[in-house]
């Protein structure tokens, strides 16, 4: 899921001041930001309180099921049309994708209340780690299911680099070197550990990516 963290609150207030907003509508997200405890019902309620305390009139709020779903967010905006119309601006407690979906759905200034951090694995409740950065060309087949592109701080396909010391990473010194971990796992599985991976094809991660899997035909491509 997309891991978000609270944006510096003063920046949110400055954004609202920049458009002279006096009234605000708040949008959360029922999916990732709820799991990350940054944009669920409790955090939306807290944001309402903080905005009120800062002198804003809060006209309303909602936590859509999935805030990055364009159709769902449009429906949600229609349901809350009156309170959205009454607001000068919208603050969104969701990832950047959710914030943009809301911005497409309402004719009001929309500001992010969170920072999008990474695509996270839930290690345990409330603890997230970045394991994949969606590079478009997976190497996990060759690396024992450990991604060096993401988990090596330098993103090296072939390591260890010269900083590895006693099996530990030189950049994040309290963490094992991922290339040593890859070798260990492959060795445990009796697999070849000597392969040099070729340079990555970054053209597979052209921005912005687009994909359609609609039955009507191949109208898009995952690039």
């Amino acid at each position: 899921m997309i891991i978000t963290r609270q944006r510096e609150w003063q920046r949110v207030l400055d954004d609202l001041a920049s458009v002279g907003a006096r009234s605000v509508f708040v949008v959360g997200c029922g999916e990732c930001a709820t799991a990350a405890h940054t944009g669920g019902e409790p955090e939306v309620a807290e944001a309402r309180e903080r905005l009120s305390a800062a002198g804003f009139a809060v006209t309303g709020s909602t936590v859509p099921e999935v805030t990055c779903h364009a159709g769902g967010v449009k429906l949600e905006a229609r349901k809350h049309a009156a309170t959205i119309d009454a607001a000068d601006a919208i603050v969104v407690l969701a990832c950047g994708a959710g914030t943009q979906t809301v911005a497409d759905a309402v004719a009001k200034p929309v500001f992010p209340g969170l920072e999008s951090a990474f695509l996270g694995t839930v290690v345990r409740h409330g603890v997230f780690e970045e394991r994949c950065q969606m590079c478009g060309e997976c190497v996990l087949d060759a690396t024992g299911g450990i991604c060096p592109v993401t988990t090596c701080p330098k993103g090296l396909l072939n390591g260890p680099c010269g900083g590895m010391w006693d099996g530990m990473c030189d950049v994040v010194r309290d963490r094992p070197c991922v290339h040593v971990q890859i070798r260990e796992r492959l060795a445990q599985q009796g697999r070849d550990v000597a392969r040099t991976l070729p340079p990555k094809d970054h053209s597979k991660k052209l921005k912005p990516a687009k994909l359609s899997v609609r039955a009507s035909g191949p109208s898009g491509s995952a690039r």
Partner: protein
Amino acid sequence: MSRLRDALERGEFVITGEIAPPRGADVSAMRKTMGLVGPLCHALNITDNQGASLHMSSLGACLVALEMGFEPIFQQTCRDRNRLALQSDLMAAWALGIENLLVVTGDDARSGDHPQAKGVFDIDSTHLLQIASGMNEGQDMQGRPLAGKTGFYLGAAMFPEAEPWDAQLARTVGKIEAGARFFQTQAVFDLDKLARAVDAVHAHGAKVIAGVLFLRSPRVIDFVNAHLAGLMVPEHVARRIRQAADPLEAAIDLAVEQVAAIREVADGVHVMPLGLDARVPEVLERAGVVPQR
């Protein structure tokens, strides 16, 4: 032909020195250092934004070395440039008369003086060796022919004391397969581990030039341990410098011993004087290493 290649292939014990380009456009201090260390060395490594900190480009500083009549080893890190920029710099370097290339991954930008910089790492050091080998054959990394091939003598870094050794060795062998003919190391303190590394590298037909640091003071030791990647001064060495009545002289004595020991094991010594440039001739002489030019 590269004097470094020539000497190593003839089995001569080689001496390389390390030159950091200036942090600015004034090359006078660097010229002075080159003038002191250059005449003692077969070749001078010109570092590339070492420690992820801003310096004049290695390419520019290599030209200063050439102008002064010294042979540079052009260092390229994978941190700051993508595959296009690296290849174009290699073409320029060869065209301008640079014959030796040392490729390294590079320290992470977060450890340098521009911690907000984006580390590029488009390709890694093994890839860059593969690419440079291809350029020596007259083609770019896409396999397309170049107008004029390069002829670099290719080197890479290795860390004889790294553990687990099998991981380090596998990477080193990968670099040899990619075209590395010589390796330079960080400062080495464990001669047994150096011997282990030299044997392994020799088995694949490549050479090892082992590093020596002049650990002039306890403060330098603290800095090395805290900031230099892949390097930790062992406690018995640190204690010797810390407890010496004159740490600087103790450091010189230590360097003499290390150079003499390296001479018995490796193919050359890479001298990193950390500002004690004027003491390099004395250290080499006392260690019985007579610079041959």
